[in-house]
């Protein structure tokens, strides 16, 4: 699948934004009241920048961005539509929560707003994952862990950004850092299981079945249907070379997970280095997650490639 930068930026940035929003809501729900105008201002502003920036990015690949509002109508059948509805609901109630936290209203009122914000922020990321997982035409995406990986990465990157904000404001939080470490490690494990799974899964669709001549029939392309690459080949024919994919997977493991975890351990051991370690960890994770999302598209083979020379899919 063609890795469109607008979609890669959207899913990574919005994932971190909704992850951060979920953590802020979780904090308000579970922690004793701790009013801090500066913290809430920075944290909510960053969560909204990441989430809305990502959503705006996603409209860049539309043929008619001005009609994007129409995408909210088909929530009965479409996960993409559900994602839009959940995102707007999460950001709407989340905005009320931000105002309540900034105004330091009584904590019970904040918590009434925090509970739906937490659920809706997670639901948004869940819908993002389901858009991909429910496409049987793309074997690598219909894997059972696709949505769980999206959710885990959003929570891990949200926790990492939260840790960084706290460190930069001078309140290094070992609790947040530990949460980020555990979530990053779990994400790495799930991603490894996912990669093993898609490598091992049999390619059951054959070109023989695609042209209706029997699954076992030997079929080779003889003449191209058209002289230049068409939309189908450009959009769905993209495939990264296996040797590059292996190197890029290592890069994901290093930049998205290993380096940030080591830097967070450093933050816990030497709080004085916190701002430096957390910032570096966030940058490293950003590079790693961008690569992870690029690979998610570039490694995925669409079944339509059977008509364009692939023997199996």
């Amino acid at each position, binding site marked *: *699948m063609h890795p469109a930068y607008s979609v890669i930026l959207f899913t990574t940035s919005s994932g971190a934004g909704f992850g951060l929003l979920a953590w802020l809501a979780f904090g308000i729900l579970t922690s004793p009241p701790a009013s801090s105008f500066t913290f809430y201002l920075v944290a909510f502003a960053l969560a909204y920048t990441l989430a809305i920036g990502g959503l705006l990015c996603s409209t860049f*690949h*539309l*043929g*008619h*961005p001005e*009609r*994007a509002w*129409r*995408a*909210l*109508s*088909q929530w*009965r*059948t*479409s*996960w*993409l*539509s559900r994602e*839009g509805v959940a995102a707007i609901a999460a950001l709407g109630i989340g905005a009320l929560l931000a105002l309540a936290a900034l105004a330091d209203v009584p904590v019970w009122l904040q918590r009434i707003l925090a509970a739906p914000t937490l659920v809706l922020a997670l639901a948004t990321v869940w819908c993002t994952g389901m*858009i991909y997982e*429910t*496409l*049987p*035409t*793309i074997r690598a995406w219909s894997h059972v862990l696709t949505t769980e990986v999206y959710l885990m990465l959003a929570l891990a990157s949200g926790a990492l950004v939260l840790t960084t904000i706290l460190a930069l404001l001078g309140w290094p939080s070992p609790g947040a850092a530990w949460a980020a470490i555990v979530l990053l490690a779990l994400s790495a494990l799930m991603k490894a299981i996912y990669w093993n799974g898609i490598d091992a899964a049999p390619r*059951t*669709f054959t*070109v023989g*079945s*695609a*042209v*209706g*001549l029997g699954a076992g*029939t*030997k*079929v*080779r*392309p*003889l*003449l*191209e*249907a*058209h*002289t*230049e*690459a*068409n*939309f*189908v080949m*450009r*959009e*769905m024919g993209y495939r990264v070379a296996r040797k590059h994919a292996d190197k890029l997977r290592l890069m994901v493991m290093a930049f998205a997970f290993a380096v940030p975890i080591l830097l967070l351990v450093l933050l816990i051991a030497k709080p004085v280095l916190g701002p430096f370690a957390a910032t570096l960890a966030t940058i490293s994770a950003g590079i790693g997650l961008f690569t992870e999302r690029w690979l998610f598209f570039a490694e995925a083979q*669409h*079944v*339509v490639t059977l*008509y364009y020379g692939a023997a199996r899919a």
Partner: protein
Amino acid sequence: MTALPASTKRKLGLVIDLDTCVGCQACATSCKEWNTGGYSAPLSDIDPYGADPHGAWLNRVHAYDVGEGATSRTVHFPRSCLHCETPACVTVCPTGASYKRAEDGIVLVNPDTCIGCKLCSWACAYGAREFDAADGVMKKCTLCVDRIYNEHLPEEDRVPACVRACPTSARHFGDLGDPDSAVSQLVKQRGGVDLLPEMGFKPVNKYLPPRPRRDATTLAAPAAPETASPSNGSVMDRFFTWADQMLSR
């Protein structure tokens, strides 16, 4: 609405005969010609006379080398929307621009509400939907919905443009939901098949597999001549030998 109709009154679709298709591309060009002025207008081309010409077509004709050895053969393979009974391209659409008609089962895109997100093209196993880069919306086979009901056209022209153009009558149009229709009978006689049935989209369009070749490469080796019993030279024996030779011709 992207919710699918529980059932459709008719199942209009195509039956494509892979035995008689000669890969002339007449269906593809005729489709392009009609549809760039019809429901899907414009069917844009980008850089048509430049170094990288490409554009939206609703029908693509491939050619494959099928089988091995002396019995291998060329199969021309036209590929377009199959108007599936359970099309995932419709249910994934976030705007309701994609829909399946309850009256005849035709799958259409409303060009006024499509946002061009391309998710439907990801959901389709058959590459039937192409993004029109100039128009910003998805284009797909309409089964020439603007011809088949068009009373301004002579009756013989009220079929999809590809069917009308095919010089070898390899394309047939009709109601595949009616077991007595000509197309359903053809599918029954010739053993028509679905493409990628394991995907579960239940295509309405059917493909008729090529008939077995009937020439020197596929005929069974001639049976060894029965050894004639040694002639005893009598007149009757010579007559039977002569008769045997005559009848064996």
